[in-house]
């Protein structure tokens, strides 16, 4: 009887201590209401071996850079209205639209729109703070941006740091599923901006090529999302992306034979291929834009 009492006492103390430790370990991980947290890194195990797989998609920075190089023009009317931030109350909506505003922020920065860059910075910060990702747009980061607003290269580096901090924080707090939503939001917005730009520039073949090439990145994005099938927001978004994948099925992105050559002076390797450029017809572009717009409107409204 005395031993049983001692055992119960030890058990009670252990459960109490364990509960306190678990509580402390989860401190700072605010806002789990609607988006389920799933304790997994953004990687998945391939059957039959121990290989861990990561998927990566072009960041909004790279997308904006590709668009600008392709001759795209700036149009602020196609961006998500900054006043929409008040609509996003669930964590899933905040995450997706953090990605969307992140893409808009990058777009305004790449096209040297300093005033609008500050507006979109504020919108992104608002949502990041709402998700508990306060490091991404902390006071020092905002000051760095304000001091470098006219320096495109510096702004790209600072915005890149913010994306990295967002990804890191969410992964470390077992919210990789939320990070996946941020990435997906940024990607769909980048594609939306490209489609809108291509529509008003009918001769912009380079922009259309970039749109066609997103067929490859879409597969990688679906790979990222596939790690979180239990998350309802990720599952819903994935369903929409699979609908987009069907639209892309008629577009061909050829591969060709790949050969390496090295520039002896710089050490830079060129990976050459004889594959022709991917193209998209006006009809295909229209279908892609229609589907992307449908997905995007659902996300921002």
């Amino acid at each position, binding site marked *: 009887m005395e031993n049983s009492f001692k055992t119960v006492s030890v058990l009670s103390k252990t459960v109490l201590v364990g509960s306190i430790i678990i509580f402390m370990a989860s401190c700072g991980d605010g806002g789990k209401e609607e988006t389920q947290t799933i304790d997994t890194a953004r990687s998945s195990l391939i059957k039959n071996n121990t290989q861990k797989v*990561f998927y990566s998609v072009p960041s909004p920075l790279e997308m904006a850079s590709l668009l600008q190089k392709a001759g795209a023009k700036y149009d602020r009317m196609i961006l998500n209205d900054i006043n929409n931030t008040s609509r996003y109350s669930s964590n899933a909506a905040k995450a997706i639209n953090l990605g969307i505003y992140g893409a808009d922020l990058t777009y305004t920065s790449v096209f040297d729109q300093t005033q609008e860059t500050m507006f979109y910075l504020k919108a992104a910060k608002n949502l990041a703070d709402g998700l508990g990702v306060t490091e991404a747009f902390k006071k020092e980061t905002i000051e760095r941006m304000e001091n470098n607003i006219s320096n495109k290269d510096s702004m790209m580096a600072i915005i890149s740091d913010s994306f990295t901090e967002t990804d*890191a924080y969410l992964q470390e707090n077992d919210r990789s599923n939320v990070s996946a939503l941020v990435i997906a939001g940024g990607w769909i917005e980048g594609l939306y901006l490209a489609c809108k730009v291509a529509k008003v520039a009918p001769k912009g073949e380079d922009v259309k090529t970039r749109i066609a090439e997103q067929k490859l990145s879409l597969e990688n994005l679906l790979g990222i999302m596939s790690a979180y099938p239990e998350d309802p927001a990720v599952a819903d978004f994935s369903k929409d992306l699979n609908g987009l994948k069907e639209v892309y099925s008629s577009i061909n992105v050829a591969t060709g034979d790949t050969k390496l050559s090295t520039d002896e002076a710089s050490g830079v390797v060129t990976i050459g291929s004889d594959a022709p450029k991917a193209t998209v017809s006006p009809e295909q572009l229209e279908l892609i834009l229609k589907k992307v717009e449908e997905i995007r409107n659902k996300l921002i409204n």
Partner: protein
Amino acid sequence: MYSAKKMPYIFMFFVMFAILTNNAKAQCNSFAKKKCLPTLSPYTHNGQLNSTQLGAGETAELAMTFYSGQNYRLKVCHEPGIEGVYFKLKDADHKELYNSHDKDIQHFDFNVKSTQQMFIEVVVPDHKDGEHSKGGHDITHSGCVSVLVGFKP
């Protein structure tokens, strides 16, 4: 009563395991940000941290699309104690294009003539027990490995 005595310790083991797993992830990301990320400069990081703990004999793979007209820097970093980490660059069909094994390279700079999907496989070789690293560290057989990609227009 004997198993009841052990239960608290078993419970504590699982609690500590959960905390340590979370901490390992945080430490891995911290390693990637502090030690690996700065070496991408002047290339811009794509914002996605691909870091994980790998043990001897394990591999990780990064699937990514690389765009024509862009310049890329690939950086594979690992904690001291796991040695001989190397990577293979493969095309869309998983045909090996480049292997960094036995090449002393700090980073891999490249561009692509045509936009294409590629795979970067990172390999941690098996090591013998008692073997020491080149830096004199005990080879721990597992540690943080990070694969970062930067781009430059």
